[in-house]
């Protein structure tokens, strides 16, 4: 029987073909002493098929809290007794956040709203906000506003939103355990519309929601099938008041196995370190991930929680000799 890492080297590194579900599962089940080898291979795959550049992004919440949906990990659902209160960010503060994000060298600024999908008020805020950002700052604007109608997709394209984030969060078979107010298929439907519009698709999820390793492998290949431009990888940071508040944080070794496995499933995709990396992997985890297949980071704070300062990540990138991806000249 061929060793899984040898097999992956031939298929993924040499030919650029992602692993299937059975092979991903084998990576997720590697013994501790082989994790370093898996990360090394994932790093080689990333360097060969994506290159050394790292895409840096900042995110901000335009509308926080009070969401009618029940995603069990989310402190912004209005259905749980979470301490997060509903609040809107004003346009000048939004522009200021975009400026500060650009000042770090980031090329992506993602505007996020805690909603099932946008209403007229949110679309109006987006229109005003995106225009104000474009007048003041050189940065790509992305958005994450929940499920969309075709008209809303078209409007976002017209505003100049270049990428849309909509996470599947977890695999299809586990999703009903995590969200009951909408379906995985509804999310998939929005993703298809976004894809067809020409906007870049950003779609990832959260690991450590209580899914099995088999389900983690299922998720990796479902994302590979969607073939998004970017996959943000979050690790559950259990939030007070949510149904998952007592869920243990993912074992750091399993987080590292997952990073390698997702890269080996998707050799050409931008894989971004998103929320929960600090609490799951500690300070060293960022380095391990960037040397294990990750080629993008969210810098600074998240939507409702804090990250480590952007400067720490940027200094690390300099030390690793990984250039920050520049804004494309076609912007």
């Amino acid at each position, binding site marked *: 029987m061929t060793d899984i890492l040898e097999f992956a080297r031939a298929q993924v590194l040499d030919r650029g073909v992602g692993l299937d579900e059975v092979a991903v599962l084998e990576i997720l089940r590697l013994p501790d002493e082989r994790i370093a080898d898996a990360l090394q291979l994932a790093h080689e795959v990333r360097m060969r098929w994506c290159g050394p550049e790292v895409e840096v992004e900042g995110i901000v*919440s335009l509308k926080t809290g009070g969401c009618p949906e029940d995603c069990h990990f989310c402190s912004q659902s209005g259905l749980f007794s979470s301490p997060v209160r509903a609040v809107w960010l004003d346009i000048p503060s939004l522009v200021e*956040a975009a400026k500060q994000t650009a000042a770090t060298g980031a090329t992506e600024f993602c505007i996020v709203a805690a909603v099932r999908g946008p209403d007229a008020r949110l679309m109006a805020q987006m229109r005003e906000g995106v225009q104000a950002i474009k007048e003041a700052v050189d940065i790509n604007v992305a958005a994450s506003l929940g499920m969309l109608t075709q008209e809303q997709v078209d409007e976002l394209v017209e505003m100049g939103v270049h990428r849309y984030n909509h996470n599947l969060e977890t695999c299809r078979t586990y999703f009903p355990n995590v969200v009951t107010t909408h379906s995985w298929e509804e999310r998939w439907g929005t993703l298809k519309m976004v894809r067809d519009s020409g906007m870049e698709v950003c779609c990832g999820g959260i690991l450590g929601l209580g899914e099995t390793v088999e389900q983690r492998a299922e998720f990796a290949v479902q994302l590979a099938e969607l073939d998004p431009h970017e996959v943000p990888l979050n690790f559950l940071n259990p939030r007070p008041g949510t149904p998952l508040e007592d869920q243990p944080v993912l074992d750091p070794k399993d987080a590292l196995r997952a990073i390698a496995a997702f890269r080996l499933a998707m050799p050409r995709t931008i894989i971004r370190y998103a929320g929960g990396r600090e609490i799951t992997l500690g300070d060293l985890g960022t380095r391990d991930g960037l040397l294990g297949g990750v080629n993008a980071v969210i810098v600074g704070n998240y939507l409702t929680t804090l990250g480590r300062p952007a400067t720490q990540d940027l200094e690390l990138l300099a030390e690793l000799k990984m250039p920050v991806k520049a804004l494309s000249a076609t912007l």
Partner: protein
Amino acid sequence: MSGFCGRCGRALSTEPAHVDCAAALELEPPRYCTQCGRRMKVQVVPTGWSATCVEHGALSS
């Protein structure tokens, strides 16, 4: 010393340590006013956060 825990909102006198809460506050903004224990409106941005209590005004990082 302030009277309420910024993370869980409980009175510090009844449960003085709040060690886990203090540790958690390194990676999240306070959600409760430390003077009155009310839930605050909190806005996180990439480089900081601000929190407002209806009674005691604004705090920020």
